[in-house]
């Protein structure tokens, strides 16, 4: 018995396991790197950004070197790759975190009842608000949704239910893809060119903004609705046909209700997307300091355009006040867009058809 156990240890038989870093190796290296970074930056008197950069450099060099010594080259390369790939994620989070932090910290100061209840009419400097811009955004976006949702969903229904294998369907799919890529400012120019034909040059209308936004919104609605309609199992359709239900009723009463959660999610996301659009509205809806609730006459300010104008061309003396307005409006806009996004997810999660029992 003792013979058996002792013999392998004396001979130089191959080990069953390749040598590897201890389980806590990565964590130890991270702690070590942070310590070095903090120490160095304290010694040379640099800020926490420098400390982080140094810590990262130390980590990227030290862990692979350790690994190279213990585990060999291939494992070391793997560790470098893992580190770099996780670093890209960290790097990508920096803009998101800093953006949200900046918007909240700079924008929350100005929010008040006055800010939401005043327009910029007769305001120079303090006392202005975003009342007109909020209503502009609501009206323009609602009209855009009213135009694009029926067209988008009906097109998706055509693609899934009627157009299978037809040439027109292939053309439409392709064009919808192309439409997804239209730069928003080109959509604005299109709406402008269209309305110039009707109303003459220099036209600025809220409804024009809605038309421009629909050009951007329709492809998003078509895409998401199409995906959702495709997910409806054919058995449901066949069962309905077998009962003698006409095709259009099958679609309206069986197919669409089954997919409705996904469709509503897609529509909500599309609304969130276009609510933040600036460029087309700048061109066709224009800018005004007044509250205008009629989309069919005159200029109409929306929140994004309001932000842009407050920064791009503030009245010289009141630069600071207008920057504050811009941040307040940005916080409002981001909040609206985020709420719409959360709403979309909730709708998707709550109303999704239950998958089996």
């Amino acid at each position, binding site marked *: 018995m003792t013979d058996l156990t002792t013999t392998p240890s004396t001979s130089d038989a191959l080990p069953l396991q390749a040598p590897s870093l201890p389980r806590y190796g990565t964590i130890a290296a991270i702690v070590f790197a942070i310590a070095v970074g903090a120490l160095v930056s304290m010694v040379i008197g640099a800020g926490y950004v420098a400390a982080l950069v140094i810590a990262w450099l130390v980590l990227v060099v030290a862990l692979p070197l350790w690994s190279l010594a213990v585990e060999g080259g291939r494992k070391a390369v*793997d560790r470098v790759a*893992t580190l770099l*790939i996780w*670093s*890209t*994620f960290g790097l*990508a989070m920096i*803009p*998101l975190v*800093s953006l949200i932090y*900046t918007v909240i910290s700079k924008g929350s100061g100005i929010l008040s009842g006055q800010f939401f209840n005043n327009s910029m009419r007769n305001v120079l400097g303090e006392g202005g608000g975003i009342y007109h811009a909020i209503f502009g955004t609501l009206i323009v976006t609602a009209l855009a949704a009213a135009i694009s949702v029926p067209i988008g969903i*009906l*097109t998706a229904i*055509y*693609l899934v*239910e009627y*157009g299978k294998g037809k040439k027109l*369907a292939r053309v*439409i799919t392709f*064009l*919808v893809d*192309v439409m997804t*890529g239209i*730069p928003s*400012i*080109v959509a604005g*120019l*299109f709406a*402008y*060119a269209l309305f110039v*034909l009707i109303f003459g040059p*220099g036209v600025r209308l809220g409804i024009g903004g809605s038309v421009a936004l629909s050009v951007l919104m*329709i492809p998003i609605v078509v895409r998401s609705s199409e995906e959702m309609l495709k997910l409806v199992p054919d058995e449901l359709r*066949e069962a309905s*046909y077998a*009962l*003698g239900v*006409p*095709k*259009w*009723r099958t*679609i309206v*009463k069986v197919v669409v209700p089954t997919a409705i959660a996904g469709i509503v999610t897609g529509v909500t996301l599309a609304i969130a997307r276009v*609510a*933040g*659009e*600036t*460029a087309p509205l700048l*061109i066709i809806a*224009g800018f005004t300091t007044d509250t205008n609730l009629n989309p069919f006459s005159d200029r109409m300010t929306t929140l*994004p355009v309001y932000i*842009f104008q407050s920064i*791009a061309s503030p009245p010289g003396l009141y630069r600071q006040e207008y*920057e504050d307005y811009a941040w307040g409006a940005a916080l409002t*806009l*981001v909040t609206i*867009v*985020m709420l719409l*996004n959360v709403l979309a*997810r909730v709708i998707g999660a709550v109303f999704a058809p239950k998958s089996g029992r």
Partner: protein
Amino acid sequence: MAGTVQESPTEPDPGGPGGSVVTSGDGGSTGRVGDRVFAGLSVGSAVLIVIVLAGVAIFLLEQGLPALGNSGESAYGKDNIWAYVGPLLFGTLLAALIAMIIATPLAIGVALVISHYAPRRIATAFGWLIDLLAAIPSVVYGLWGINFLALNLVPVYNWMGDNLGWLPFFEGPVPNSGRTMMTGGIVLAVMALPIITAICREIFAQTPKMHQEAALALGATRWEMIRMTVFPYARSGMFSAVLLGLGRALGETMAIALVLPPSVLVSFNLITAEGASSTIAANIANNFGNASGSKVDTLIFSGLVLFVITFAVNFLGRAIAARGQVKG
């Protein structure tokens, strides 16, 4: 509903492609009329999309082409229209190029984290965070770019100007505002990142499990497995993702309009304010409000140029994606 169901047994099944209506004696059958109306509606809205897109092209051509002869005052003081649009086009391409150089490796890394590195539960949350990045309006990016990012990048630019100044890209002088081509490119990179990530991560996740497991079973490390199975499988998809991100970066307006000072010139100097050429989209946004007469035509013409380029880039991207799907 109930009424029609009772009537409908007499009606033929309009279901499949060959299921055309043969006989329907009773005139009041809602099924047939309803079917026609509904099919008409859905075909109509599909055709409407064709019309709208044709309209975009036709109206832009109609309003923009007259500007081809513009010069002097109506071309914003340039000798001919191309002397005006050319530098803007250069600025557009340069900003988009910087954005792609920064965004592509980042996006691929982030996509790999979500598809292969992070545990499943966390990966979903990570994907959601990246989607948030896509949801933020572009004007807010511009606001952040000009008031936060640009200012914080000034020390970096100063360092670049001091140490890399011998490269023509980093000559300086660095403006205190930090509003440079580089800043514009970085903002665009942040905005294009979620698009590229979204497409890449979907394709990465589609890599056949068997290939991956085979590689791991042969003793490959995770990185070797990714290089040997995931990247070859996803190559065309990654390429088309980058092209679609490029399409976004080319057409992006507000961030650039806020971050870059409006000037029309050709310069490779990335970290100075004087040498920053504006982009087509930003230039339209900055000037459209004050433009009148033939200047409007000039701006619309530049928009037409932008439309053609983004169309080409997106077309290429979709074509490559489609080819990859057939092959895969």
